[in-house]
């Protein structure tokens, strides 16, 4: 890396992105539960209240439906709200606002009203927060036309996706995997906005496409390293955006490797992993040299005990084993 990098964390990168947005555009404000005086449930907005004041860093009541609705109204009125929901599980309380209002108003108003709203929320398991705080439901939102679904996994994306989301005239949901907040790394000092419509090849390879996003990206990259030691050359595709899905990058990768394994912390049934498989079948059937496979979470409510939670979600050894099976035809 050049000298122009800084050591940072995913949390700090996300905070830097919010701060930059607040500085650059006075229409931007942040609101949500405990984002102000408490500094955010995951400390993402720590210090922002002191810097920007209660008008722009707004604590809300415990009422997801109300404050997401308020965000929609503010966006219609010309503001650029960033609404933080503590976890994806709680966002279900605001499902009516997100799905029935934010996603539809442009259409229902005959194109009169865009909703330039950004909703951030935490997703994923691995922190012993049990079955009401740990699920990965971003795949559900990817089902809904009218919204965009982003899943930043790298420091660059944590730093750069928010501004692009705010620039977008329509509602954008950003899913931050809770396990990533403490991730440290080097980030270019001048890192800024990134595109929010393409997937990225995080590791090129020739024998299998490991397709993943968010919290399982780094497990998958570790798995790819282990596979390399076994002589299996795996490519890792980071989806980055679940809606719209970058089908072209997925198909291009599979057309080169002829095999694919999808790794998703969501459950299998009716999931984004199923959607990806369907698109591969629709577009790359004759390029496939082995059945597609998935590593997903076990279909149970997320357990609280650590060993059960570990067993319930994708882990490096299960990814390695599944990829090996796809490539070699046996365990």
């Amino acid at each position: 890396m050049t000298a122009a990098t800084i050591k940072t964390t995913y949390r700090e990168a996300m905070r830097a992105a919010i701060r930059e947005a607040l500085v650059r555009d006075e229409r931007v404000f942040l609101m949500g539960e405990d984002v102000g005086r408490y500094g955010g449930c995951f400390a993402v907005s720590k210090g922002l209240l002191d810097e920007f004041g209660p008008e722009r860093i707004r604590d809300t009541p415990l009422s997801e439906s109300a404050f997401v609705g308020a965000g929609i109204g503010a966006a219609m009125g010309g503001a650029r709200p960033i609404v933080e929901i503590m976890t994806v599980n709680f966002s279900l309380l605001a499902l009516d606002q997100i799905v029935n209002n934010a996603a539809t108003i442009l259409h229902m108003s005959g194109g009169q009203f865009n909703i330039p709203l950004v909703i951030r929320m935490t997703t994923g398991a691995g922190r012993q927060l049990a079955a009401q705080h740990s699920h990965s439901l971003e795949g559900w939102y990817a089902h809904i036309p009218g919204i965009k679904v982003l899943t930043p996994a790298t420091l660059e994306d944590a730093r750069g996706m928010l501004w692009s989301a705010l620039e977008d005239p329509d509602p954008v949901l950003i899913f931050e995997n809770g396990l990533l907040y403490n991730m440290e790394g080097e980030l270019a000092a001048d890192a800024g906005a990134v595109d929010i419509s393409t997937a990225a090849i995080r590791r090129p390879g020739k024998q299998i496409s490991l397709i993943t996003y968010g919290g399982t990206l780094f497990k998958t990259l570790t798995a790819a390293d282990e596979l390399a030691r076994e002589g299996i050359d795996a490519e890792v595709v980071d989806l980055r955006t679940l809606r719209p899905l970058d089908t072209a990058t997925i198909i291009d990768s599979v057309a080169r490797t002829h095999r694919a394994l999808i790794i998703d912390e969501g459950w299998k049934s009716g999931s984004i992993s199923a959607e990806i498989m369907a698109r591969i079948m629709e577009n790359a059937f004759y390029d496939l040299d082995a059945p597609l496979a998935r590593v997903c979470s076990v279909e149970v409510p997320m357990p609280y005990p650590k060993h059960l939670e570990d067993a319930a979600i994708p882990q490096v050894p299960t990814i390695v084993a599944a990829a090996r099976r796809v490539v070699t035809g046996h365990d």
Partner: protein
Amino acid sequence: MPSLGADMQFGTIVDWRVKPGDAVKRGDVVALVETEKGVIEVEIFESGVVESLVVQPGQKVAVGATLAILNGGAPAPVKAPDRVAIVQPTVPIAAEMPAQRDVTAPESQRLRVSPLARKRAEELGFDLSSLTGSGEGGAITVGDVEKASARAKTATVSSIAAPVTAAKGLDLGAMRRVIAAAMARSKREIPHYYLATTIDMRKSLEWLATENGKRPVTKRLLYSALLLRAVALALRTTPELNGFYIDDVFKPAEGIHIGVAISLRQGGLINPAIHDVDKKNLDELMGNMLDLVNRARTGHLRSSELSDGTITVTNLGEQGVESVFGVIYPPQVALVGFGTITERPIAANGMVGVHSMIDATLAADHRVSDGHRGGRFLLAIERLLQEPEKLYGN
């Protein structure tokens, strides 16, 4: 894992034809197993309900290892424990079965080919049916197609020194080693004696010509079927040539199952058995022979066919060979060889005539039989071939 040949030590499950919960009866094909001799359909010895599959496709296990657990649905005959393991307990396997597997009987005939492999084979004009796959569940992958295609090309270029590697997933190098081991053992342990006689085939050929004249092309009989019938019926009177020599004891076989030596196109040799040849008529036998050759060359033989032969017949007539003195396939005790049919001047009844003659030879195990018995056996074959109309069977 059953022993599918005298020198088999390991087998690899290629595919299961049953799944847990399926009812099976003795003789059902339950799995495909790859050995050095090809992919073999394994029949089950017991009836019952499959409780679990212990060995997964792709796994290589030793002969004697447990492949699956049966739950004795039907009352087992003698030793009737509730759970009948096919063989011995073995390594537990944790892998879970894929939720949906291709297990239905009709589908079993369909080749498992990856879409890419199928497309590539079409581009190359390559026949997939000659391949055995290396992928999951024996599926043919693009790598299998490209390797086989490359080999086929080298094979056609360097015509004579045909490489001892097969287009099929079957390892011909390994097959050659197996043949080497069996033949070396045979020559080391079995005191062979050899007899030869020349048999007049005129009556047989005339009878065949008349018989075939009445038949559509597809139903025509070959003289090799007559030869098999003659061998089988002659064996009824010389049981000491039909059976196995194991642990210094000869065990006559109950049925007459003739192993037919079939050379494979890619090189190598296999001798699957036709069961109960003495009880089949010529049409049945013809059907069996064609079926066997086809399946042997596409690698779809059944376990009982590979291990049940009680004697072997080798027919090198097609190659123009006049006589063949064979090496007995242990633990069998005899091998009958036929050469090509040639026209020869034969003096008989004070006249010289041109007759169609065939050399029949016997290689037999002197520990079990003597030249005298062997001679009677060849004589019996000769006599049977003089009355071909009686060879047809019921």
